[in-house]
């Protein structure tokens, strides 16, 4: 007998029903509108009443309309064929939906997430009699450029014996490829796909590891100063127009990972369109294949149903965990987590729950923490290592980081890349504020260098503030040059031109080489007649350095520019005046260890300072 309910109240997308029989929290139910079934999720149960959120427009529903209960939790379908897809927040494939219903997303139209008629080349890796548990592979199929492992469904919690396994060959996802039995002798068929509830983390691994391996993005300011780690978490807060989406787009192109999952959560449809139309044409620099072959897009843009927006981040993270189970490094980028939080706020408001700060629900923090907790680097049962890294943008109301979503996120992430409006307005892209951001992870740049740079920037910032008060005339030439040096560093290293084919991404070896060159310049003692002379020098040096940045790695012009830069600097450098040694050391250590530096400090722990920055002052030109 099918469980049923009836609508007794409607408030936006939250509908109250009366039901008979049993109902589960987060169960999928369907509100019946004439001949269409509107997918919904149970979000609160009280006696024989329940509140459901409808993943569609509720216009036209009436009191008394039927509701069908499915008995199943809100789930996604896992199996080969996910990569390259464009899904909505409930895993409806949008391209297929467009073929079926045209321009608009009509209510109640759902399509199964994975094509059932497609055949996959299956190669078994177990044989009759083998023992298997959840998450163990029984074989694999090639999916684009990766080997997709076919695993024992994660909800099977016993130990099983393989009693049948398919021969190598072509199979559809609904065909049985193995038969297993448990100790009691119950036989369970295994297919290439199975469902998994989105709000439940997948834990079929041996152990969680700490995120110690850097995840290179090709973005210099991130990799060098505020690195992210495989299996780590980070957030990008910033006011509108500061460059959050562009930063994620660049990351999704160049990050050195196996799979990228983009969750476009409550943002503009046009931005997703750019990605879906451009990615198939773009070549992944690491594999030489189209970028789309490593990308999954979950797209629940701002005018799509709000309730599905809430689910979309869970859909995304579940797919990420699934691929992690195959020993892959997965990067999940969610833009914007604030829209997800707002969807929760809308739901909570309609449920008339007691509101917390800015009307967000009181459980906001724990829900955000729970989401980021699903990131992680794990050792799988077969010894392989996989990871899910989560990076979320935050769109703080009024651009102030004091608001609840930013604050709740800050508590749980491992790196914080704060975008500043000032930098964006000044077109200093990527607009990550070097003095506000921090990262607890270790990157490929050694800690003393990282620390030295942060302190140099902090000191230069103090000088800049002073110049604003006392003017250039009131500033000493030394201070002024120090400021120009750091400004130069900002211009040519921290800033990066996303639209230049070469400068858009800087791989690790190039970053190291360029950073060596540039820290060499920072630590040089350069001589100038006066401030005007210094300003002109740095303008020219900057121009050459920008040419250097846009030259292909190790091309003729790359070496030419490098030589030119070294020559320009050599011409101005002089022996370091004894008396000024103190000045440099001041620059490196004096600025108060401000709080952001302290947070980065985590990454610096256990690393003693064998080298102080002024130990690095090169003795001769070769070191430059």
């Amino acid at each position: 007998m099918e469980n049923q309910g009836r609508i007794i109240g409607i408030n936006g997308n939250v509908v109250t029903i009366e039901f008979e029989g049993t109902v589960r929290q987060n169960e999928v139910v369907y509100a019946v509108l004439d001949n269409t079934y509107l997918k919904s999720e149970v979000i609160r149960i009280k006696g024989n009443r329940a509140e459901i959120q409808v993943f569609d427009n509720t216009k036209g529903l009436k009191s008394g309309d039927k509701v069908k209960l499915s008995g199943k939790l809100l789930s996604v379908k896992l199996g080969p064929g996910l990569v390259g897809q464009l899904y909505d927040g409930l895993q409806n494939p949008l391209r297929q939906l467009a073929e079926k219903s045209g321009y608009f997303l009509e209510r109640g139209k759902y399509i199964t997430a994975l094509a059932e008629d497609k055949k996959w080349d299956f190669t078994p890796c177990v044989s009759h009699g083998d023992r298997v548990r959840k998450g163990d592979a029984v074989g694999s199929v090639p999916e684009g450029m990766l080997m997709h492992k076919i695993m024992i469904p994660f909800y099977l919690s016993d130990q099983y014996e393989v009693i049948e396994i398919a021969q190598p060959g072509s199979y559809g996802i609904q065909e049985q490829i193995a038969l297993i039995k448990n100790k009691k002798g119950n036989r369970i068929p295994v297919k290439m796909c199975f469902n998994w509830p989105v709000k439940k983390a997948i834990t079929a691994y041996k152990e969680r590891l700490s995120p110690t391996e850097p995840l290179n993005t090709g973005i210099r300011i991130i990799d060098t100063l505020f690195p992210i780690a495989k299996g780590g978490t980070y957030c990008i807060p910033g006011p509108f127009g500061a460059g959050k989406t562009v930063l994620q787009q660049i990351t999704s192109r160049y990050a050195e990972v196996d799979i990228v999952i983009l969750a476009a959560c409550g943002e503009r449809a046009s931005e997703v369109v750019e990605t879906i139309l451009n990615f198939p044409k773009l070549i992944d620099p690491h594999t030489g294949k189209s970028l789309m072959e490593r990308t999954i897009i979950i797209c629940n843009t701002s005018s799509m149903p709000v309730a599905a927006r809430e689910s979309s981040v869970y859909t995304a993270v579940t797919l990420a965990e699934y691929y992690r189970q195959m020993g892959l490094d997965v990067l999940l980028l969610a833009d914007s987590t604030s829209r997800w939080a707002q969807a929760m706020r809308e739901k909570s408001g309609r449920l008339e729950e007691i509101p917390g700060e800015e009307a967000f629900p009181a459980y906001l923090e724990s829900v955000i923490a729970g989401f980021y907790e699903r990131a992680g680097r794990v050792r799988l049962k077969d010894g392989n290592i996989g990871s899910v890294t989560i990076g979320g943008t935050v769109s703080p109301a009024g651009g102030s980081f004091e608001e609840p979503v930013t604050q709740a996120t800050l508590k749980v992430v491992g790196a914080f890349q704060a975008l500043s409006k000032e930098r964006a307005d000044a077109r200093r892209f990527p607009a990550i504020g070097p003095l506000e951001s921090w990262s607890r992870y270790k990157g490929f740049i050694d800690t003393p260098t990282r620390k030295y740079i942060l302190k140099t920037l902090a000191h230069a910032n103090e000088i800049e503030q002073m110049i604003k008060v006392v003017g250039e005339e009131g500033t000493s030439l030394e201070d002024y040059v120090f400021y120009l040096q750091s400004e130069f560093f900002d211009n040519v290293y921290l800033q990066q031109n996303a639209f230049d084919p070469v400068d858009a991404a800087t791989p690790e070896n190039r970053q190291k080489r360029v950073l060596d060159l540039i820290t060499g310049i920072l630590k040089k003692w350069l001589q100038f007649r006066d401030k005007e002379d210094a300003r002109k020098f740095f303008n020219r040096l900057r121009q050459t350095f920008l040419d250097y940045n846009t030259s292909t790695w190790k091309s003729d012009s790359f070496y030419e520019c490098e030589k030119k830069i070294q020559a320009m600097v050599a011409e101005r450098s002089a022996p370091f005046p004894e008396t000024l040694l103190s000045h440099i050391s001041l620059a490196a250590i004096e600025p108060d260890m401000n709080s952001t530096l302290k947070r980065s400090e985590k990454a610096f722990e256990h690393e003693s300072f064998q080298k102080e920055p002024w130990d690095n002052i090169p003795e001769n030109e070769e070191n430059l």
Partner: protein
Amino acid sequence: MKKIYNKIIQITGNVITVSAANIKYGELARVSSEYGDSSLAEVIKIDGDRVHLQVFSGSSGISTGDEIRFLGHQMQVSFSDNLLGRIFDGKGDPRDRGPLLTESLIETGGPSVNPAKRVIASRMIHTGIPMIDVFNSLVESQKISIFTTAGEPYNELMARIALQAEVDVIVLGGMGLRFDDYLFFKDTLENEGALSRSVFFVHTASDPVVECLMVPDLCLAVAEKFALGGKNVLALLTDMANFCDALKEISITMEQVPSNRGYPGDLYSQLASRYEKAVDFEGAGSVTILSVTTMPGNDVTHPIPDNTGYITEGQYYLNNGRIEPFGSLSRLKQLVNKKTREDHRPLMDALVRLYAYFEETMEKKSMGFRMSPWDKKLLQYGMLFELELMDLSVNIPLEQALNRGWEILAECFLPEETGIPTKLTDKFWPEEMRKSNEKGKAHQE
């Protein structure tokens, strides 16, 4: 099968409650008094047999004994070419003397476009305003707002863009529009012969607040339909702040917990579902949305401009009668300004960068610091830039605006001081200027 009730059990704010069965969520009803006047109302909440309706003309004067007739359908608007040249109010009733249109009704607030059916915007809309064409190009299918304050000439700016833009249909949505402004739009479009390709939905400041809420939906439903028919449509919405305030009013009446300064927690979603109607349809026309957002207290962090900025694809800051180069942003400009002229992007960047230096110099100057030769150049540059490019009275095509940019640079600087790649200065630096500058340089040395 119209259902009629005549027992109103509650009236709060502009929301009335009746006890009724079998009523659809979102359905319209007509509330009529014994004196014969009537108003539309929309179902906004159902709680068992208690049905809450928002009354378009406001609840003032409504009696518990008024008749409520449910219409069995949602908000609709007639769509056909007969709309062109016509003016309606926020309920969709004629405001001009023309006939009531009832043919081919379409529902407003329809579903959103499948992202898989959108295409990337690619056509620039030329406005003749250098601050837009050169620095923040407007693009077909863009959604963008003019951020401004009361008293600025935003409606004039909007009308001017509408007239310059080569679009097939103009849909104007007025919310809380002052009557003068309404007449201004009407007369301007009429005089320029553009009224015959325009439709107006105008809620004036003296109309009931709730009617204001319908305006964007009416406009965008009509715009979308024209676009599906292959037309390029420009939708003008002024002023969205009034729309937001109407939302706030209704949510407070419904006792919703406000999120920020009294505005409802779903303000973002409400605005987004309207602005996202901007679209370039694969194989059909497009809808471009240009709106006005007046910022209370000129504060961009106020929830209205804040939420808008997070939704739109950029904003034009209209301040002191000029479009500010800073803060103004067209996020789609990079889709069009690479194919205009090779110098467009680098020139634009250089002009803005130098203008930023000029502003710094102005600050220094106001603090009484000595002006270096470089500062003096910047001062001259800033003055020319404001006069010849920023002033809203300037009305020149893009090509000419770019040339003017070079002339201004050449008048004030040496090529290498502009930070523009040598390749381009060699090609575009005005010849006479080059000579006189070289002379000047030789003279100096």
